[in-house]
């Protein structure tokens, strides 16, 4: 049932009557995500400089195997090709969580696929299937990545805790706080702000209900997730930038380029 008569003809890519800097936002997203993707891939394949004392970078947490005291299983399995790093196995989950995130989907559809490049701006392609069929119908798996992302919060919180224990010089451990401890702790805080404001979580904790009044706990949970969800984009960017900085910080310590100052 199309409307009677023809609506305006489709505009070509980038064509618009807008006279503001509509290209600025998709360009910023394109540059920001590209920097992260290049950096993350470099670090995943580097397979080195991922720990410093009690600090473990989030890119390699949990460290499934290796010779490090952080490793869950000591040594490298013989059957494993040398080029596979532990980060490759675990980063599938947080990467999948971000890739299927409702905020990021809208952002990268615009910035990378021009679908559309910006609101009321002409598109690149004629054909459009949206998320109605393959391949993008797979985005509906988002809630399963959420479950893993929540598990990762506990793992990273444990890493932050371990980052509070330093060698005491007598073979034992003593409590302390270094700049790295704060960096690791903030990483958990920012990732929690992002993960716990997830649209799928908002649905699962109470959004599926039509009547809240009989479920006070669910209503409270829904309110809390909604509160974070209202700033989901900000949490998404802050946590993305900070997880990259956390990795950079630990790697620079491991390379001996930076010094970790002890505060306590």
């Amino acid at each position: 049932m199309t409307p009677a008569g023809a609506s305006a003809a489709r505009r070509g890519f980038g064509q618009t009557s807008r006279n503001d800097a509509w290209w600025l936002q998709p360009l910023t997203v394109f540059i920001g995500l590209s920097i992260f993707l290049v950096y993350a891939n470099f670090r995943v394949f580097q397979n080195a400089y991922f720990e410093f004392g009690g600090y473990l970078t989030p890119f390699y947490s949990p460290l499934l195997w290796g010779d490090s005291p952080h490793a869950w299983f000591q040594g490298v399995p013989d059957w494993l090709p040398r080029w596979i790093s532990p980060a490759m196995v675990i980063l599938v989950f947080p990467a999948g969580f971000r890739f299927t995130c409702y905020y990021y989907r809208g952002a990268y559809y615009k910035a990378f696929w021009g679908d559309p490049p910006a609101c009321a701006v002409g598109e690149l392609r004629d054909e459009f299937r949206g998320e109605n069929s393959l391949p993008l119908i797979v985005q509906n798996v988002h809630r399963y990545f959420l479950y893993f992302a929540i598990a990762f919060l506990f793992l990273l919180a444990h890493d932050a805790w371990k980052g509070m224990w330093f060698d005491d010089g007598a073979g034992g451990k003593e409590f302390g706080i270094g700049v790295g401890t704060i960096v690791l702790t903030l990483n958990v805080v920012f990732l929690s702000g992002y993960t716990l404001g997830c649209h799928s979580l908002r649905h699962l904790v109470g959004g599926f209900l039509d009547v809240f009044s009989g479920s006070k706990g669910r209503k409270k949970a829904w309110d809390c997730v909604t509160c974070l969800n209202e700033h989901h984009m900000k949490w998404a960017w802050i946590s993305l930038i900070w997880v990259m900085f956390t990795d950079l910080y630990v790697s620079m310590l491991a390379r001996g380029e930076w010094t970790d100052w002890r505060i306590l």
Partner: protein
Amino acid sequence: MTTKATFRIWRGTKEGGEFQDFPTEVTEGMVVLDAVHKVQAEQAGDLACRWNCKAGKCGSCSAEVNGMPKLMCMTRLSDLDLSKPVTIEPVQTFPVIRDLVTDVSWNYEVKKRIKPFKPRKPDFEDGTWRMHQEDVDRVQEYRKCIECYLCQDVCHVLRDHKKHDEFIGPRFFTYVAALEMHPLDTEDRVEELREANGIGYCNITKCCTVVCPEHIKITDNAIIPLKERVVDRFFDPVKILFRKLFGK
């Protein structure tokens, strides 16, 4: 204090048309609709423009001002760069009747296809119900909609891809959300959301939210929660299994 400004207004019919420049004097406090009325009064008496309340509540004066869908009555000239011509054109998603007036009747037909409100049995013998405020807070946001169809205009699924046969657009997802999440409603619209309403076409650009003059968070509060209900029903194997085992 008066200022000179040029309004580049699209003139034409469904057969075609072109922009015409109308230089005119504007004064402090004017909105775009005032300028269009001034052009009508002084230079183009036959300029077609639909309007009614001039208060952002009737949703009649939808148009595209400098390329963005807006209510003309709520767009202040002081917010525009008047050193350049201000373009005013009809909404792109629906067929032009004349000048700035478009035929939006497709929306009325779509609305008729959506399953209507079906309340549960009345709570009391006098035929009334009781609802808690916290149960209706969520749907009250959707009911702010004034049906200006700016969201329908900016949605690229309709605007660029002309999926009018398969996709109902953000306005009607908001409408379905208002019904589907209503505490009294007993109807089930989840299957038609996926099949007939084409919610899967939405790729969450949030443009509908950007242009909504009532500041309804259409994407976050209506479309995504509905998408999640569709996921519950059709794409979550655990939920599907749970429903098969326990019947709910």
